[in-house]
């Protein structure tokens, strides 16, 4: 590893002005976080339809509206992060299809359009049959919509930490984690105990799998590539991102897992709700740390 030569060369950069600071900051974190909840709610609504259609009553419209709000929050932060937001229309008139940004923007727009249609179907026609039919296609579309950010991260080739296979899985798990948490909080007592436990299990298992992947990267990532080792150093030392990383892991994954285990024994709704709140809050922190740390490494 070239890093080891520093002891011999004592090489110190004495003049360089690298591209400054963090370009994708908390606006992009908000983007990913809101999209995870927005698409995750659709996944959960579809699972509810398949598992227990009777419990859909009274949940179709509020779940769709919450998902719609989160997707618009995601689009708002995407737009706000652009340096030329008024040129956003270029994506639709000059699309470059090798870019995951373009593909994602188109899919997300269609997704939000379909969500609007579903809300209109419920509010104006109260046509649950049509709603349930469209929900299938919207759920299918939600998969690439939630995945495409992993594609963008993969195309950001300068950031070695982000690899498509792991980021894709993490995006899906973020959606199932936050979606199950959001529907638990949204539905409240409208769900039966069995269905609550079902969503609680999804939450706990999503947390467990996401935690395993992060720990795998944390422990084994550095063995494969020097750049990854240098990036992971930001979460292995004593700095602010190391603290944030572990806060995120505890709040998003470890505590919700423990609370879900406790809920299965106690059947306490308060414990389940607390797990859901922690998962949603912690996910933001986890995503933010993983977004920022590769940008701290000088590229030149």
């Amino acid at each position: 590893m070239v890093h080891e030569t520093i002891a011999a060369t004592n090489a110190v950069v004495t003049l360089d002005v690298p591209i400054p600071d963090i370009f994708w900051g908390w606006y992009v974190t908000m983007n990913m976080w809101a999209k995870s909840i927005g698409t995750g709610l659709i996944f959960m609504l579809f699972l509810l339809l398949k598992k227990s259609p009777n419990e859909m009553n009274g949940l179709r419209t509020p779940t769709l509206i919450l998902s719609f709000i989160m997707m618009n929050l995601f689009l708002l932060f995407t737009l706000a992060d652009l340096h030329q937001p008024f040129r956003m229309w270029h994506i639709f008139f000059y699309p470059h299809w090798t870019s995951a940004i373009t593909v994602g923007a188109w899919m997300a727009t269609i997704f939000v359009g379909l969500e609007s249609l579903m809300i209109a179907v419920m509010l104006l026609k109260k046509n649950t049959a049509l709603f349930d039919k469209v929900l299938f296609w919207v759920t299918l579309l939600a998969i690439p919509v939630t995945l495409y950010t992993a594609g963008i991260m993969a195309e950001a080739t300068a950031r070695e930490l982000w690899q498509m296979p792991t980021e894709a899985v993490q995006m899906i798990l973020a959606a199932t984690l936050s979606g199950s948490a959001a529907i638990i909080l949204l539905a409240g007592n409208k769900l039966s105990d069995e269905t609550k436990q079902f969503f609680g299990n999804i939450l706990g298992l999503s947390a467990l799998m996401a935690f395993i992947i992060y720990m795998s990267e944390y422990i084994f990532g550095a063995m494969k590539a020097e750049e990854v080792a240098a990036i992971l150093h930001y979460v292995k030392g004593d700095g602010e991102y190391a603290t944030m990383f572990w806060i995120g892991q505890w709040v998003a994954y470890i505590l919700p897992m423990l609370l879900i285990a406790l809920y299965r024994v106690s059947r306490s709704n308060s414990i389940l709700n607390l797990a859901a709140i922690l998962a949603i809050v912690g996910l933001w922190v986890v995503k933010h740390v993983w977004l920022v740390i590769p940008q701290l490494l000088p590229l030149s």
Partner: protein
Amino acid sequence: MQLGFLVDLHLCMGCKGCEIACKVENEVPLSTWRLRVKYVDVGTFPETKRTFTPLRCNHCENAPCERICPVSALHYIENGIVNIDRERCIGCAGCVMACPYGAIYIDPETQTADKCTYCAHRVASSMMPACVVACPVEANIFGDLDDPTSNISTYIQQHRDVQVRKPEKGTNPHHFYVGAGQVNLNPLASKREEGYSLFNKITKLPLGGQH
């Protein structure tokens, strides 16, 4: 035609003439650089030496910036230059995130991405890039890589230590270095310690978004 660049680091003396010429030619705003010369000090006093490395866009054959750009603002032109259309750029900074060489910046005046274009406007008028003209020791060699008789092709043929930055990224850069060591080309081969930089308080102009 495939235009390329080569810098002979045996000749470069870190005068920054290329950097200034680039700034003037392309009206690069304060706090941003299309081309910059990195200094790395090596060794322990009194056995020390200073190395100089001009850094600019590598005009990769497989350019990650071109691939990620959602509106084709970054695009290839027929002579192999990766050019940028600032009128089309939406300022998503995807290219900034994708470039493994840190060669792209957001222009604080236009709020769009910008980078070295090998002075495509000068090349179109059969002129050399401004940095080539300014170099007092002819360390910058520019020409057609497809022409085996061009200066750059001859230089590559005659030197054994021709290297590119980060070849493992698979970008196939069209920017070469002769006489470079790890400290020149690999950012992980040197430390960045506070207080060691010749300029410690660099003012950056505000950018859009949350930056």
